[in-house]
């Protein structure tokens, strides 16, 4: 069966596809920042809970207070790219989701359990005792499971040639184990998360006013997490790269000049971040990491396009123009972000007054 005959016809879009592309990239970067922070902190807290030394427990408690927000914002910022990807690639992602429906649907249940575990961990940190490890482990493992399902779907949607498996398995239990990039892709996200989680902790302590050994030690610890996981990340990145189909891999080696420039920028960004990491220069490291994340999101997008190139390109989507709803969204977004800024300012101002 010709896999391209299975690809559903796409719906029309109301504005030029570039808008959706822009919002997709923008919101996905935001999502990654929160997701990496959430998962990375979770893993660090889990390790800390297992080690259970006083120092580690201090780190874990620090994290426990922050985990619920980061989950909330990971979910919230995850909704937007999931929306925009459906606009551009709906006919691919709905299909792959149905093929793995059982796992895909289970995501929200798993997430709910992870979320409540994180809250229990947060609200009852001091009284839980050994239960702490259980709840943080539950939260982290379930977060990893959710990530693994996402990696499956994000690759399954790109490989229509595997969709014919539906005819022997229509019950929604297909995972994309045949995809060589599945595991490197998944671990790529996990390693990035640990790095960003460490970096975030360093930033948190950087913000603390009192200059102390404790603060310095925490910053150093965060930066160690960042640096070592980034070294691992380089290895995983190579694994990911070589597991890509050859014709896709070569676009980063001169096959496509934009892709090659991005790839090189990514290497430069990672290297710089790593250097700053080892030097414990928190802010420069954070900025280069942010830069690298943006580059990686763009690279990821190029990989997606290259996978789908034989079947589909977003520029072929038919536009039936209706720009006024876009204006509504942009205006609301500006107001919304301003209000978020305003509220955070109010909260922080009050905190200072409190602390006085």
């Amino acid at each position, binding site marked *: 069966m010709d896999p391209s005959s299975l690809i559903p016809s796409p719906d029309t879009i109301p504005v030029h596809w570039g808008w959706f592309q822009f919002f997709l990239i923008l919101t996905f970067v935001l999502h990654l920042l929160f997701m990496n922070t959430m998962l990375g902190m979770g893993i660090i807290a889990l390790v800390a809970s297992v080690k259970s030394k006083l120092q580690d427990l201090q780190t874990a408690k620090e994290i426990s207070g922050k985990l619920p927000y980061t989950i909330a914002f990971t979910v919230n910022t995850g909704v937007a790219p999931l929306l925009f990807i459906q606009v551009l690639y709906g006919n691919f992602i709905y299909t792959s989701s149905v093929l793995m429906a059982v796992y895909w649907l289970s995501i929200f249940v798993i997430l709910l359990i992870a979320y409540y575990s994180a809250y229990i961990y947060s609200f009852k940190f001091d009284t839980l005792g050994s239960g702490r490890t259980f709840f943080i482990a539950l939260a982290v493992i379930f977060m990893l499971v959710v990530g693994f399902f996402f990696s499956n779907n994000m690759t399954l949607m790109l490989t229509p040639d595997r969709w014919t498996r539906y005819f022997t398995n229509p019950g929604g239990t297909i995972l994309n184990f045949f995809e060589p990039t599945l595991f490197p892709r998944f671990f790529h996200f996990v390693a990035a998360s640990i790095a960003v989680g460490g970096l975030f902790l360093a930033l948190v302590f950087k913000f603390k006013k009192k200059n102390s050994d404790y603060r310095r030690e925490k910053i150093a610890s965060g930066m160690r997490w960042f640096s070592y996981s980034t070294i691992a990340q380089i290895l995983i990145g190579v694994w990911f790269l070589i597991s890509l189909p050859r014709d896709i891999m070569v676009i980063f080696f001169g096959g496509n000049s934009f892709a090659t420039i991005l790839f090189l920028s990514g290497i430069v960004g990672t290297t710089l971040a790593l250097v700053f990491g080892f030097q414990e220069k928190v802010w420069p490291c954070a900025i280069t990491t942010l830069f690298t994340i943006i580059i990686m999101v763009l690279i990821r997008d190029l990989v997606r396009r290259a996978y789908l190139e034989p079947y589909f390109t977003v520029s072929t989507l038919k536009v039936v123009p209706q720009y006024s709803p876009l204006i509504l969204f942009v205006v609301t977004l500006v107001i919304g972000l301003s209000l978020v800024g305003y*509220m955070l300012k109010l*909260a922080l101002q009050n905190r200072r007054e409190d602390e006085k």
Partner: protein
Amino acid sequence: MNYPVWELYFAGGGLLIATIAVVHVYVAHFAVGGGLFLVLTELKGYREDSQNILDYTKKHSKFFLLLTIVFGGITGVGIWLTISLLSPGATSTLIHTFVFGFATEWVCFMVEIVALFIYFYRFGKMDKKTHLTIGWLYFIFAWLSLFFINGIIDFMLTPGNWLKTNSFWDGFFNPTMWPALFFRTSLSLVLAGVFGFITAVFIKETMCRENMVRYCAKWLLFPFIFMILFAYWYVMAVPEAPRAMILGRSPEIVPFVKIFAWILPVMSIGALLMAIRIPGSVKKPMAFALLIIGLIYMFSFEYIREAGRRPFLIYGHTYSNSILVKNEEKINEKGLLKIAKWVEYRDITDENILDAGKEIFKIECMSCHSTGGPLNDIFPLTKKYSVFGMDAQLNGMGKIIEYMPKFMGTRKERLALARYIVEGLHGKKESPVRIEEKDLYTEIPAFNEEKDEYVLLAWSSMGMHSFTDSDPYWSLMPPGNNLYAQLIRRGETPEIVTEDVVISYAVEKGFEKPSKHVKFWEYAEHFFGKRLPPGIGLSGNGLKGEMKLNEKQMAFTADMVPVVPYSDDGSFNPYPLFTIEAIDKNNGKIFARTSVVAPTSTEMGCRNCHGGKWRVNGQAGLSRETSRDILAVHDRISKTNLLELAEKGQPVLCQSCHPDPAFGAKGKPELLNLSAAIHGFHANYLTNREDDACNTCHPSSPTGNTQFLRGIHMELGLDCTSCHWKMEDHALSLLKAEKKAGKKEADRLMKHLSPKSASTMNQINPRTPWFNEPDCMNCHVDFQEPETDESEFNLWTKGVEQLYRMRTDDVGIMCEACHGSTHAIYPTKNPYGKDRDNIIPLQYQSNPYPVGANKNCKVCHTIDMEEEVHHPNSLAMFRNTF
């Protein structure tokens, strides 16, 4: 069709979405009203300078945060995942139409989260005014989330002008958007009170607890009044078709509407009870009970709204099974399997028909029906069907019962689906029906052409009297054949004898006691208000007796003779014989004797679709199961309670409601007459068929156990449709008359019927059943040989007098006297004995042709005649000899 279908089996039929959606929606509404509750309660705390109230507010905000942000937020994602898995096509339409609506709502949710986190974590740590500002911002953005999502949800029920313009704004500001927004806002405030109870009953300090519980009761009660008003506005804003569905047309919605209505007083009484001073130990369970009642309330509301848009996901745009309305015609023309993307079998063969049927099932049925699950399980719904019945059901689906989409696809695909359901899912195997050939001995009474002075002609006025033996449940027609006889005194100028003669009739042995075989006599008084002795029919005639003279017709008749097709030997015989004798009134001498069949059958094919077995001998009769199902279906579709009444011993006579000109039954005059109702309804399930549509219900099938079309017309290859026309036309002509008489229900049955023998509906002439029937003279113009085999459609007899069974020739001999009964025109071929219907012509002229045919004038005239006094062409030689 565009997307693969997730095979859910047990968990199908909406179980997933119902479970996830209702809990999410419940919490999501609370997230709106609860926001206002927090701010106003906090204010109350400041105003009353009560630390207890402030403590309560803070505690409640934690509960609120954990419930709304965590559970509400994640289940919201859950709904999204679920709909994209169950109806990816429709989800794609929603997303592509309202992407910026969703995106805007997402911004609101983001602001909500930030606000709520600050509100909760900084409670008591900020100055009052700033904290309240954060609280207000939370509420405003929570309400805005509702505002944006509400527009999109209501779009699915009432897309309004969007269907024409495809404009975002037309879709968003759709006809029910505002009433739904106000309704949901009020509901969210009510829920704030309901959830408020949950935390309030746990306040330790008694005064404060009582105070806060009363406060929550007010939250529940005041918006309640508005909620009811807005609910009314909402319903009124729904366009007529879905509103009719909500208000009762869809029998599945009715219980939910009842729940919705009943919970209103229950909840308000509950709230009032909470407000009075009763012990905390009672209030705690009551608070949780109210919470559950609220959930049921939410479920019933959402169910009504969801079901109201059936058979669509997006009204008028996407059917419940995700097939786009615009593709329907193409699918019917080319075939679903040819167009759908995710199918393996493009062509149906004998080998793959069940697999192909399964693919069709997945695309067209599975989105709403589970297989073996708790919701919309396909098994009990289709249990009764044979392949034919299932096929007919699919044929009529979505036409009368509009909450399901019509079947879309070719005829072959429909059969594949029917076979998959019946043979594949239910594992039924159907063996072909074997008909027993019978050749019962038929004695031809003697006639001496030289000596005999009289010719006695006898017949049953209807070629077949079908009646229903389902009396414990219902009756459509009692047993009762009309026997006719004319006595002719032979001579050069014969006379029709009407005086000084008694005409007697008596049924053959084995048929004398019909009450042994049917329960008609147990229910006759109930049905007809007459107490009848066993074996006596509605006109007082039994199975033997004297005929009465009908002077106008110059014939003797015995009407409503209650003969049944069941013999004492246990056999089914729809052609029992009657002996007819003409006796001299003065001396008892027999002038003439003959015999004639009284055709009567209970081979009504209801079971083809309504399930059940034949009641008698595997050949005929309405079984309990069949009879019950018919009432159950009637009850479901027409909102009656006939089955319940029947089971209480009060079965129903169809004509007690439906007028019927056959009986002169007035019924309820606003209802469709019985023929129009029954043909109009069933025509929707039996379209594009030939005579098999008629044979499905009537005992006319050439392979059935009665085969009542048994005259020369059958031998010449004509069938029911040659005179009565096809099912659609037949039904439409009846319905059109009813429509003209102002009966609204006619439209519902006519809506999906299109004429087959005329190009437009206007060309169909309305007609009254039993009065306006096919006229022999349509084909036999001036009694001549017809020019074609097909009669002209739309020409009906003008009244009863013109019916074949009522007509006479130019000298007063009734048509049937010489030509035989309707549907058994001489020469006939009876399946229970070749000459069983030819007795009269064989007796008097030794051939089975019409009496006097082939210039056999001597039968009555004793000499040859040269003038055609009976009717033109009566002296021609018989054409169709065999």
